[in-house]
């Protein structure tokens, strides 16, 4: 054997040995962290956060403020570094409440607010727009589907009309696997803004919007809570909805055929068209600042990768004090999401107690203002404590099922990125089987779009791969096959966003230990592995992921 070969063989053996040792060390570290997850810690945080003295942790309310201070005190106690604004644990969420008085007139005839339309001002207290409206079909720009409803259109300073939903509503061969938000009002208004429109109305369509017009319109009357986003470009000042029958009248006054226009919108090659009728929109808005914060603490990593981080979050806010139901006006949110917040604190404590110092930092976040629309996570993504390119992943808990021991455990988003593999390994280490995609609770999660309804969604849209612990397992030990689904349905029907989501649900912290150990192992694995996780090829977030790593995340993705 030649010298070089010997050296190579020795080196190979050595590197194998080193790799093996480091793997063994990693696995020992993971076990240490997992073992440090303790039921009484979870029970303690849960009991406090869900108690009536926290008054339901309402955003802008006293209970929400106390909850935030509690989280900060626990981060401080654990020695996490403050990673919020100005070296504090608090990251301000620029939340405002706006009450709009809108008007809309067609050729001088006033339409009726709430029955014909609703509107809100964007970024300013008084706004007006006047133009012949431009009908932009679905108002979608989606290069991945070779679709551009704004192609060739000039909407600068004009009023835009866009249909709710996506072309697939009329032609199911289109927009397969599309980003779900293409159908949403927020996306359409933002897209119009990017094209310089002065106002954008989304046309209500029963087939594309899951609630009746009356209910939708009512939700827009009174104060709207939102992020105070400074306008980056464009002159758009007004957004809103318009009733489909009203839109139809408007189109017909422009001597155009409603049916032809709407079906053209679902055909590739659709071109925006101006309707020859004078439209005037105006909104006067009253604004107040709503105090709200994320609570952010950092367990510093070690070595070169310490400049990167894994975010482990849970929203601590709930609905606060509200209308009494059966004499109870405190919306405690024990499951939603005192359980997850307590879980996040418990994992943070486990990391500190176990003395874990993984390569990447772990940023623990209690998100605020989730219930009004994921505002805390939106604000975090818009102004992260470190560039998004260096945030390797996000793990979120929104609801920890403390109702039994299960054989299975799942995380939503696992199929979107390489995080799935890490999660499955961590779950296996705690003796869990994967939950089948066809399990009733998983189908329910898909149908109800769980993935887009909690704080992982803004991260995914910004290209950060997330995992969202499935809020309920499928296969509970000692329970019949459909028990889990029944529990979920029962919760959704009777307790979701009700004062009865409180400690009387009988949540038992002992059942949180294994799921939290899995998350602790997962976070540790993400924080330890040399490379950042990657999106799968098929993931709709892959493009956003590439933008993030190229440092282009921010403006575009954040505004969605």
């Amino acid at each position: 054997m030649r010298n070089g070969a010997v050296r190579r063989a020795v080196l190979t053996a050595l590197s194998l040995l080193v790799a093996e040792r480091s793997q063994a060390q990693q696995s020992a570290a993971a076990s240490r962290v997992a073992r440090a997850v303790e039921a009484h810690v979870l029970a303690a945080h849960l009991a406090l956060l869900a108690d009536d003295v926290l008054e339901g942790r309402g955003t802008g309310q006293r209970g929400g403020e106390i909850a935030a201070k509690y989280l900060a005190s626990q981060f401080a106690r654990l020695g996490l570094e403050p990673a919020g604004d100005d070296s504090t644990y608090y990251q301000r969420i620029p939340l405002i409440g706006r009450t709009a008085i809108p008007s809309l007139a067609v050729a001088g005839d006033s339409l009726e607010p709430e029955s014909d339309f609703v509107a809100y001002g964007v970024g300013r207290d008084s706004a007006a727009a006047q133009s012949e409206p431009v009908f932009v079909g679905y108002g979608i720009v989606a290069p991945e589907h070779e679709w551009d409803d704004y192609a060739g259109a000039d909407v600068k300073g004009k009023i835009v009309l866009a249909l709710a939903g996506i072309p697939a509503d009329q032609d199911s061969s289109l927009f397969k696997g599309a980003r779900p938000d293409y159908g949403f009002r927020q996306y359409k208004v933002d897209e119009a803004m990017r094209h310089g429109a002065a106002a954008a109305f989304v046309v209500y369509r029963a087939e594309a919007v899951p609630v009746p017009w009356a209910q939708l319109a009512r939700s827009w009357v009174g104060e709207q809570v939102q992020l105070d986003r400074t306008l980056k470009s464009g002159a758009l000042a007004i957004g809103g909805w318009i009733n489909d029958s009203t839109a139809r009248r408007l189109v017909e006054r422009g001597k155009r055929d409603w049916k032809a226009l709407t079906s053209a919108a679902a055909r590739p090659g659709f071109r925006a068209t101006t309707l020859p009728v004078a439209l005037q929109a105006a909104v006067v808005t009253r604004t107040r600042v709503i105090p709200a914060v994320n609570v952010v603490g950092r367990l510093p990593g070690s070595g070169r990768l310490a400049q990167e981080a894994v975010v482990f979050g849970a929203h601590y806010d709930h609905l606060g004090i509200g209308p009494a139901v059966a004499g109870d006006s405190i919306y405690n949110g024990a499951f939603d999401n005192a359980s997850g917040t307590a879980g996040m604190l418990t994992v943070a404590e486990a990391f500190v107690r176990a003395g874990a110092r993984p390569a990447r930092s772990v940023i623990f976040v209690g998100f605020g203002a989730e219930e009004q629309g994921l505002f805390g996570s939106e604000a975090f993504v818009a102004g992260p404590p470190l560039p998004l390119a260096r945030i390797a992943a996000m793990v979120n808990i929104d609801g920890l099922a403390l109702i039994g021991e299960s054989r299975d455990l799942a995380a939503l988003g696992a199929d979107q990125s390489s995080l799935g593999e890490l999660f499955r390994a961590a779950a296996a280490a705690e003796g869990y089987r994967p939950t089948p995609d066809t399990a009733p609770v998983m189908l329910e999660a898909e149908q109800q779009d769980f993935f887009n309804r909690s704080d992982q969604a803004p991260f995914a849209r910004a290209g950060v791969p997330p995992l969202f612990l499935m809020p309920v397992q499928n296969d509970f030990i000692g329970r019949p096959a459909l028990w889990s689904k029944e529990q979920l349905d029962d919760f959704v029907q009777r307790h979701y966003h009700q004062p009865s989501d409180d400690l009387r649900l009988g949540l038992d912290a002992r059942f949180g230990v294994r799921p939290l150990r899995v998350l602790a192992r997962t976070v540790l694995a993400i924080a330890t592995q040399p490379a950042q996780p990657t999106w799968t090829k098929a993931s709709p977030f892959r493009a956003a992921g590439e933008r993030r790593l190229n440092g282009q995340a921010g403006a575009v993705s954040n505004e969605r």
Partner: protein
Amino acid sequence: MSIASALRRLPLGASLVVCAGLNAQRPARPAPQINNRALLAHLGFLADDALEGRNTGSRGAAVAAHYIAAQFRRMGLEPAGDSGSYFQALPLMSRRAEPRLQASGEGAGAELRWLEDYVLVPRLADSLSTVAGDVVFVGHGIVAPSHGWDDYKDADVHGKVVLVLPGDPDSTVFDRRMGRPWTSVREKVEVAVRYGAAGLLVLQRPDSPGWDVLRTLGDERLSLVYQDGLAYWGWVRDSAATRLVASSGRSLSDLAAEATRREFKPVPLPLRLDATLGVTSRPVPAVNVLAKLAGRGPRANESIVFGAHYDHEGIGRPENGDSIYNGAEDNASGIAAMLGVAEALARGSVRPGRALVFAAFVGEEKGLLGSEALVLAPPSSVGKMVGMINADYLNLYGATRDIGTLGNELSTVGDALAAAARAENLSVRVDPDDVARSRFFRSDNYPFARAAIPSIRIVNGVDYVGRPAEWGREQRERYWTERYHQPDDQIADWMSVDGLAQQARVVERMLLLLADAPRAPAWSAKSDFRPGSAR
């Protein structure tokens, strides 16, 4: 490290502060580990404006109580409150009386006028609000065997109303500063309870507090509901007192003169006092927070208590635009130390010989109500309390070479302090100013002492590391004059928990010494609180 800035930014590097001091008596026990950043975190939360000054009965106090309970539970300590919880509910009422008090007897009766002639404070459940009794004058109402003084002698006052003179019979007999405050109304109430009296009225004398002060006892006030038979205590105004006694054919000044002698015997008066208390009550939610580290072995049913009050003054009159009386020193500091000690012990593997009970008291600022409630009706899981250490405003000024105390010479708890302080290289100091101001009797250790449970109070030293000799005393004086019970008793940039950690380490050592000692703490021979000395 200053607290305010530290609360904003805590480096991870400031890890556990491990004391290298020697444990003098039990080398087997590990050296105390008090986590400074945890002290800071507790202090910061409890003294935050969001807790609104933690006034007894307020939502701020409720948040504080739940915070403390959450910390106990997190540490894995057992609940020691009511029915398996961490909370002991106080039988606390906000009460206002509108009584009628009718004197009748041979010398013709008279109705006394509420707030004009007398004032009284109801003590029992509202249902027991009609009290009639014969009247006995019991001199100054003092029974102090240690001083050879007994005003009751063998008198039977059971079910009767006792009239007592305020203060003491002879200023040379009773030490008003350090000895048990035999001459206080509080102690006289205690004696009357022990003798089974149904009511106690103090007769105002020319050297008593003015009537404008005394009559405020008739305002709505917080009080515990007792179950001991004494329906009320109160005061009779000097003019009315003179008339009342005269109506029985005796002269108050003559009786007062008799009462200055040791040989004085109680004087039954041919009078009856009929009281209808007319109480309006509102229950006030208030809880002590109690947790236990179980003991092991033959003495596990006994317990050593480490207590600190968590209540403060709440929201009050604004000073410089600040209306929140945060009570950072008084007594978020004591609770922080208690939580620090509890965590160190809970995290360690020690199982002490006696149980350790951690008690966060409510109602201290309203008259030591929480500690009294615990002493009167301890939940069963508390066990038999045999010793108590009290922390009430501890050190936020920095490291010291000494530790302050009150009551160390009264019992063997003081010996434990001496040993623990030695192990931490601290000298034990009793400050004359604290003695002069009777501070042993102004905090939660006092109800324990009254119940014959040896207790001690930990206070701040005066000898600060890196400071001029007089600095410590100046700081104390400034606290008493500028911040005590003011909104300015709040977190400030200059604060440090280094001294607080020292005090916590001393207490941790004391607890283990007391819990492991073969003999339970005992009063010293000269102490007025020895069980025999009060009977």
